[in-house]
């Protein structure tokens, strides 16, 4: 598919470094956790998780996102998607734990909402550096129970999402959905592995993408060789046993870079 032209209808300042871009196209078939390739014409094309059927939520971290932040309402970009495999669909009566760190809350907010709408019981642990950096607090609160953690203690529990997680009986959940900084996901993976609930957990990974459609192999992870852009970005915890998660990733040239 060629990129479709999407016009920005609204820009929401979520925090000092995070903005949501609402556009004029709705990906009705989108599964929460799927992503789109966002083409800032003349600059670059980068993968972004869909935060709604018609929005992406972006942290300003590099050249492409900086250019994205220069765009105004009424401007347009190209979109290819929805791509990849999202979180598994929650069912009525299930107990769902959502663990979101930083901008990792973006693909998890639609998941929490879908779970709640399906009749599942949702419990979210939402973490950020400070109260002002918390993303989609209201959306998670509306979907179910919400625990907040901040690094500086300005809101909720002072500390990390893992501090709350360690106090929970993780075996009581039917699915545990995780997205956030890789170091955080690495620690969560260990906790869930020790508690033998990896088969009920899902992690959304972030890697450098080139083609975005499963052909080039730039985003393959060790040791499985699975493609983050097509076999993921959401993987079962079982698929990530003995993987590079939390250890290293590859840069655009394919060189290993420590996390």
């Amino acid at each position: 598919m060629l990129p479709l032209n999407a016009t920005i209808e609204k820009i929401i300042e979520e925090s000092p470094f995070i903005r949501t871009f609402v556009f004029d196209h709705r990906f009705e078939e989108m599964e929460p956790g799927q992503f789109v390739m966002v083409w800032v014409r003349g600059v670059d094309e980068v993968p972004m998780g869909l935060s709604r059927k018609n929005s992406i939520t972006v942290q300003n971290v590099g050249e492409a996102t900086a250019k994205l932040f220069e765009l105004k309402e009424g401007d347009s970009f190209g979109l290819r998607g929805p791509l990849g495999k999202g979180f598994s669909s929650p069912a009525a009566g299930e107990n769902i734990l959502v663990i979101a760190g930083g901008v990792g809350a973006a693909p998890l907010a639609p998941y929490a909402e879908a779970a709640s709408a399906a009749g599942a019981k949702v419990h979210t642990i939402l973490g950020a550096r400070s109260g002002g950096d918390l993303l989609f607090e209201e959306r998670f609160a509306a979907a179910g129970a919400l625990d907040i953690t901040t690094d500086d203690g300005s809101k909720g529990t002072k500390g990390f999402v893992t501090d709350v997680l360690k106090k929970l009986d993780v075996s009581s959940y039917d699915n545990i959905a995780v997205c956030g900084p890789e170091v955080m996901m690495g620690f969560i993976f260990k906790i869930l592995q020790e508690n033998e609930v990896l088969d009920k957990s899902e992690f959304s990974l972030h890697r450098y993408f080139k083609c975005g459609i499963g052909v080039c192999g730039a985003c393959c992870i060790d040791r499985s060789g699975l493609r983050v852009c097509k076999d993921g970005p959401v993987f079962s915890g079982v698929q990530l046993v003995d993987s590079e998660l939390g250890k290293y990733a590859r840069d655009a040239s394919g060189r290993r870079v420590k996390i």
Partner: protein
Amino acid sequence: MYTLTGLELKNPTILAAGVLGTTGASLCRVAREGGAGAVVTKSIGPEPKYGHPNPSMVQLDCGFLNAMGLPNPSYAEFVQELEIAKKDSGVPVIASIFGGNSEEFAEVAQGLLPGRPDAFELNLSCPHAEGYGAAIGSNPCLVETVTAAVKEVTDLPVWVKLTPNVADITAIGKAAQAGGADAVVAINTVKGMAIDIESGYPVLGNRSGGLSGAAVKPVAVKCVYDLYAALEIPVVGVGGVSSWEDAVEMMMAGAAAVQVGSAVYNRTDVFSEISSGIETFLQRKGYSDVRDFIGLAHEAI
């Protein structure tokens, strides 16, 4: 078993260069789960290279358009991936290499030898990297020199991958043969371009690139047909092969084996599917071996 330039292949389907070949783990996956008879790595060069900005690959109605720009971690860094592929893939691993001149090609080949590749494939055909690939591969003199330079530093089989973006591909094939190539591989992508009509921007980050997939198959069949007639060495067919029918057609044009690239988009086990389809075809037609129909089109007059 099936022998090609001394390599033992369990079937005549080979993963093409530049596809799922950046890591040892993904090469192993294509071999073990995908069923490829051999695998070719991503093209590796002397220095780390990030490649072109994205979009680097888009799907069109008729195929795929890409301009990756030879991203690679350098031979020094890639040796560890090659070792993994060699240890766990269970199939021959062909190292695709590129350089800006004969010296660089020889340096990269030597640099990868500790990873114990089974053969080298020289990328003299990438259509969109200035100073590399087709920039060298369109000139018969340079093709011969580069091929000879790599043959000089290794006893391993050397395959030369050719560009179709020339007036006469057989002239380039003959130059590779004269340089000592053990096989030629045809074809790399066909120059192409797509433009976003909403904005006027070319879609690829590099503005233009190379076309692969179904659209290029007839181009590849013709190139393989001509090369088979012109050369003494085997021709490996690549370009738009996604089914056993495509593979048989390519072999009837003269391909000793086929490579599959873009078709992994639909399924990574396309290799198993093609090789079992070929087996069924052999039985149905009463052939004892694929050799019975390699080049058959040349006899059907």
